């Protein structure tokens, strides 16, 4: 019996103690009519570990090892070997939520360190211990902002159209049932940037509760965060920065935006030690100023003292959470992404601010280099003039889906098809070359794309 340690003697002795003859009798409170008629025939019979290993290896191989130039919210960065060797330790991997603080100081201290690191990166006072992913963290940020902006009676939130389309969809799913109104602010088709004018136009005259600023936006373009922040604050709105945390190694952090800084920062921590893994598990982060901390959803760890005056760590402000406050909680979140945050913490400890800077700078340089090479191909050119971090949109002479398919047939993933989400742009491709891409790989991409476009255009 896989994973069940009972011997026949054990079973006999245990049944005798309980006072029943057969295990099946223990289910006698379940109405007979409801009982499963037979074994679950649709489920295949058990495999040995060796058998499932063979199957999984085959399937992992089936996914191939294409060369990846897609970014768009998930990035192929180097992950130090130490990260997952440590994260996989049973004591981290198989521990529960640290409800018994004294027996969970390892996990709790890691979370406190994570909070500290995210606070430092965003230049905000407090961080929670993770949410599901970046997109759902943004939704929680919006709900939080609505609660925190007590002076404001509206439920209107400005969302830049240049925010990742999948994030906008997630946001809508999660916040609209509570009546939140999401208002789209456009972007400049030449620069790819949002501007105060776009935000102002979208806002109109009505009261605005919160404003989202994406830095960088989905086109990789850097937004005028200071101006946007100042404008939003002047309008009485709370400012939510949706940021790539790696970019913060180089870019002004939300806490420093404009004259007073943003109120809330959120984003996807995947660039910090999390493998691409088809999209998850990743981890959403959420940081805020001290004044909003009681509206922060999710678990929070605090430093305190024990009965002997020694420093220790514990979950705190639990009265915000569902297990205490139930229907009045700041969120329904319970299980979060603890293990991924452990990875992020170790990743950040290994790299430090200077290491992150080097990674970010190399990403920036690689993408610039890639774009230069690709733009040398006839018919390919940068779509926007705005400065970027490590992604850039390109105009193509053919629909991007078609181009991507041809590239994929050569085991190269060429980028994210923007035209599917922004038809107004025409054939547009978002490319990304992280620090993990080499000169040869970029040259290979340019070479392949040149040949494919040449052949396609000739045959058109």
């Amino acid at each position, binding site marked *: 019996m896989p*994973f*069940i340690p*009972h011997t026949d003697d054990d079973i006999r002795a245990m049944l005798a103690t*309980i006072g029943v003859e057969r*295990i*099946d009798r223990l*289910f006698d*409170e*379940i109405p007979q009519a*409801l009982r*499963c008629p037979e*074994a*679950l025939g649709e*489920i295949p019979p*058990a*495999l040995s570990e060796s058998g499932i*290993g063979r199957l999984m*290896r085959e*399937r992992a*191989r*089936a996914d*191939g090892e294409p060369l990846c130039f897609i970014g768009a919210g998930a990035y192929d960065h180097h992950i130090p070997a130490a990260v997952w060797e440590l994260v996989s330790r049973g004591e981290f*991997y*198989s521990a*529960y*939520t640290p409800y018994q603080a004294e*027996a*969970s100081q390892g*996990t709790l201290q890691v979370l406190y360190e994570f*909070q500290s*690191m995210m*606070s430092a990166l965003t230049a905000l006072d407090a*961080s929670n211990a*993770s949410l599901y992913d970046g*997109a*759902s963290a943004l939704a929680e940020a919006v709900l939080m902002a609505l609660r925190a902006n007590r002076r404001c009676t509206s439920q209107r939130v400005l969302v830049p159209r240049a925010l990742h389309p999948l994030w906008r969809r997630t946001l*809508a*799913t*999660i916040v609209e049932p*509570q009546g939140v109104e999401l208002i789209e602010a456009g972007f400049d088709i030449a620069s790819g940037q949002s501007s105060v004018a776009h935000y102002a136009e979208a806002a109109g005259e009505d009261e605005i509760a919160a404003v989202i600023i994406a830095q960088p936006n989905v086109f990789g373009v*850097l937004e005028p965060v200071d101006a946007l922040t100042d404008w939003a604050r002047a309008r009485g709105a709370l400012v939510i920065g949706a940021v790539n945390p790696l970019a913060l190694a*180089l870019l002004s952090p939300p806490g420093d935006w404009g004259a007073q800084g943003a109120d809330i920062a959120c984003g996807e921590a995947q660039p910090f030690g999390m493998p691409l893994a*088809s999209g998850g598990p990743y981890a959403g982060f959420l940081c805020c100023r001290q004044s909003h*901390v009681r509206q922060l959803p999710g678990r929070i760890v605090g430093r*305190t003292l024990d009965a*002997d005056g020694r420093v220790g760590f*514990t979950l705190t402000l639990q009265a915000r959470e*569902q*297990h205490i406050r139930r*229907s009045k909680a700041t969120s329904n*979140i319970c*299980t979060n992404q603890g*293990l*991924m945050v*452990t990875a992020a913490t170790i990743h950040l400890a290994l*790299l*430090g601010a200077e290491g992150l800077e080097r990674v970010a*700078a190399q990403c920036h340089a690689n993408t610039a280099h890639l774009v230069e090479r690709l733009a040398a191909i006839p018919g390919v050119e940068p779509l926007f003039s705005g400065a970027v971090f490590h992604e850039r949109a390109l105009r193509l002479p053919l629909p991007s889906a078609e181009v991507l398919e041809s590239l994929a047939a050569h085991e190269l*993933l060429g980028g994210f098809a923007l035209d599917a989400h922004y038809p107004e742009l025409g054939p547009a491709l978002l490319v990304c070359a992280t*620090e993990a891409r080499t000169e040869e790989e970029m040259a290979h991409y340019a070479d392949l794309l040149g040949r494919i476009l040449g052949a396609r255009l000739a045959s058109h």
Partner: protein
Amino acid sequence: MLIHDQSRAGRRATTQAPLNPPAPEGIPASLRRRQRAALPEVSEMQVVRHYTRLSQKNFSIDTHFYPLGSCTMKYNPRACNSLAMLPGFLARHPLAPDSHGQGVLACLHDLQDILKAVTGMHAVSLAPAAGAQGEFAGVAMIRAYHRARGDVARTEILVPDAAHGTNPASAVMCGFVAREIPTGPDGDVDLEALRAAVGPQTAGIMLTNPSTLGVFDRNIEAIARTVHEAGGLLYYDGANLNAILGKVRPGDMGFDVIHMNLHKTFSTPHGGGGPGAGPVGVSARLEPYLPVPLVARDETGYRWLTEADRPDSIGRLSAFGGNIGILLRAYVYARLLGREGMGRVAEFATLNANYLLARLTEAGFEAAYPKRRASHEFILSLRREARDWGVTAMDVAKRLLDHGYHAPTTYFPLLVPECLLIEPTETESKEMLDGFVEAMTAIRREAEEDPERLRGAPWTQPVRRLDEVRAARHLDLAWSAQPQGANHGES
């Protein structure tokens, strides 16, 4: 000592970043960061040592018996981890085309089928990232269903008072009012109260069965009838599915929608708080509303279905497909158990729970529902010990740590005073359970003879009992570069 306290200016784990990146000249100075973030500057060995030693300060299922009721701390097979971490799976970009994901999609599609089979539901979406997100999705589908029928007056979700806190919180996140239904003296839902509560305003009920009281609600058919007749739908909180796996199926009990905590029943790791996975299953009438993405199969292979294929979907719950890595672990686990193994999970989880209940009752502890079978878990109330000797459930919990056992869940469900919710799971041996009974017996004796010893517990952990009031009053949530003196961030 925090990793920050080991920091020295200029120290580096050099090999971890590109050695000579060019300066990022394309970025305007006005957008540049002015001061480096105060992250630790440490060597690679310091990092390895620090986190290795921190890990050793944790209890975990790999090191300790962890009878945490409702949380299902059972053995997490290591194969689930290593096979989900195969390079081919880890390297796949979420936006890679389906052609380059047939392997992972095959696993997810198989998993959808397995979950349909064990729950008796019509269709499954794997998108929710955890139980609570599954609840959100489930209630959102109930909302979408009523709305699609123009039935917009249904503003209430009924929730038994024994329910997990996520249930009412999820109902509220979906824009409903959560209305509490009391529990009867024997642990089943109070049917009269339920009948009185249902009405045209009832959108549905969220039910856990077996409930978090550790009993199977015998009136489940009547409950289902009552709610359905009032036009409401039934939501099954499947966190406790392990108790009935292969024995009875929520679909057969009449539930319209269910979420499952794969990090419980399907033994994916808890990771110190997550990640989990909370797939939702639905009856046929709710299928159009399932959250995307879903995995479909046709002649050409497997593919993701998105909003474009599913116009009535409640939508997307995260940027990509949810916690895929966790789903892969659950899939491996399900295949290792196989058809035969599913039912054994329920059988031995239930055997262990009833054995432990019998022995602890024998040892003098009071069962909250002495006349009931335990499901996979059960509740003790320490109100007599509290009254007679002045020790609390918390004291007993902390003292257990000294004996090398993780504490059961304390003070949940809220309706039983001084309660311990105990779930041994099927993967623990009789010897281990016997050892736990011995420890509980010793602690009970100590409660009488030396209650101070309990009130001061734990004594053998890295720290003594922590001051939670202080933690909340003097918030210290992040290290800061300014030394804060002995009082660590009094605010």
